[in-house]
């Protein structure tokens, strides 16, 4: 019965590998095209902001990166959970493939946030609720990556990572709430960073295009990493042998 359900088809590493290999070039192309469009509109169509000048243009990376950092964490935790609860190896591989990308998006959000904060609000870093929560999100990613890397047994690592990711996902709203609470208590010392420039529709368009571009990028890079891990894990299987033999010197 379960075999007739189409979405289990790609749970087999061999089928996923072929799907990913076929889709990847398109995903890279889409990511590049969307980025080109987004950046064009962001730099050449969107007007200069009245209060922040041209410094605000960092927003076209900062906000998409921040959104993606959270989305990727949810995706990672979901795939990890599926890999654990349904015992699906491919799902766990996807979770592992997503983790470094999520961490990098988080770092980009923090880095661009700092560079945006410095000219507009006078400080490289402020302990406002969102930046601080983003920093903690980075720690959650690093924890996941460190945990699965330290466990030699692959499946144990998959499951332990899944439990940790789920606990992290459940905690994220709690952490965000507590940090916001902490931040508002100490309002005197902090600057209100929540005011982004009033969004002209061109600015919004550029931001959305960049977000979609990052999304396509995330798919592409996670597929790439997942393919590598599939080969590593399944190197002794027939289908991998055939794949490698068939290509000979060619890149599979």
């Amino acid at each position, binding site marked *: 019965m379960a075999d007739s359900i189409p979405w289990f088809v790609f749970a087999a590493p061999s089928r996923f590998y072929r799907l990913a290999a076929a889709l990847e070039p398109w995903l890279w192309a889409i990511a590049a095209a969307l980025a080109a469009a987004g950046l064009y509109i962001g730099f050449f169509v969107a007007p200069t902001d009245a209060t922040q000048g041209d410094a605000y243009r960092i927003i076209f990376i900062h906000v998409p990166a921040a959104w993606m950092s959270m989305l990727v964490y949810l995706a990672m935790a979901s795939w990890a959970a599926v890999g654990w609860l349904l015992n699906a190896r491919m799902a766990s591989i996807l979770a592992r493939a997503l983790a470094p990308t999520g961490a990098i998006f988080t770092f980009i959000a923090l880095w661009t946030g700092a560079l945006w904060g410095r000219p507009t609000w006078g400080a490289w870093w402020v302990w406002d609720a969102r930046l601080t929560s983003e920093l903690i999100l980075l720690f959650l990613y690093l924890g996941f990556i460190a945990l699965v890397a330290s466990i030699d047994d692959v499946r144990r690592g998959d499951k332990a990572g899944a439990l940790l990711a789920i606990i992290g996902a459940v905690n994220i709203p709690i952490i965000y709430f507590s940090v916001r*609470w*902490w931040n508002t208590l100490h309002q005197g010392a902090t600057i209100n960073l929540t005011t982004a420039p009033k969004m002209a529709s061109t600015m919004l368009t550029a931001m959305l295009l960049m977000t979609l571009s990052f999304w396509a990028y995330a798919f592409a890079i996670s597929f790439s990493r997942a393919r590598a891990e599939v080969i590593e894990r399944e190197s002794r299987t027939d289908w991998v042998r055939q794949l490698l033999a068939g290509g000979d010197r060619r890149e599979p």
Partner: protein
Amino acid sequence: MSFLGAIYLRDLRLAMRRRVEALLPVAFFVVSASLFPLGVGPEPETLRQIAPGVVWVCALLAAMLSVNQLYASDHADGSLEQLLLSGESTVLVAAAKAAAHWTVSGLPLVVAAPLFGLLFGMHGDALRTLFYSLLLGTPILSLLGGVGAALTLGLRSGGMLIVLLVLPLSIPALIFGAGAAGAVDSGLSPAGNYSLLGALLIACLLLAPLATAAALRISME
């Protein structure tokens, strides 16, 4: 004697046989808290302001560094496997061990911390609040630490890894706990902090043993 009680008393007895090791968390707490005035300067006003935060952070670190022992020695001599195979609830094992850890490592911290608060120049009300906040907070740390210890069972990098895994999760407790004494210091009521801390404690009491049990099963497969 319930199973939970039996495990709890067993762990206590084992800890009492190694009294020096059992007191290491408190010693770590004392030493690390003492570093702050040396690093920051003896200015009384500064110390008084940073006191709740310093005490809480040092208590957190002391709890995290000692939690590895929760499962390590039982894992090493095979008794953990026996416990899990015994057919009794793994959740109860997790709960009992967290309770034992708190009794041995957390409770002494709760007692030692206000003494340190005095050294930092904290006053009556703030000291009392610090005491209560740690009373509510240290069980949370033991419960969360149990999850971390179970996840990293038998790993080479266990100790440091637990810290990296569990500290982000303990941040809400830190915020509300240290915030309670800080609120009292500024003349505000700590009631909100207590409620939130209490809510965290209840959530941890219900969920952490479940997570720890799941982690134990994953680690011991």
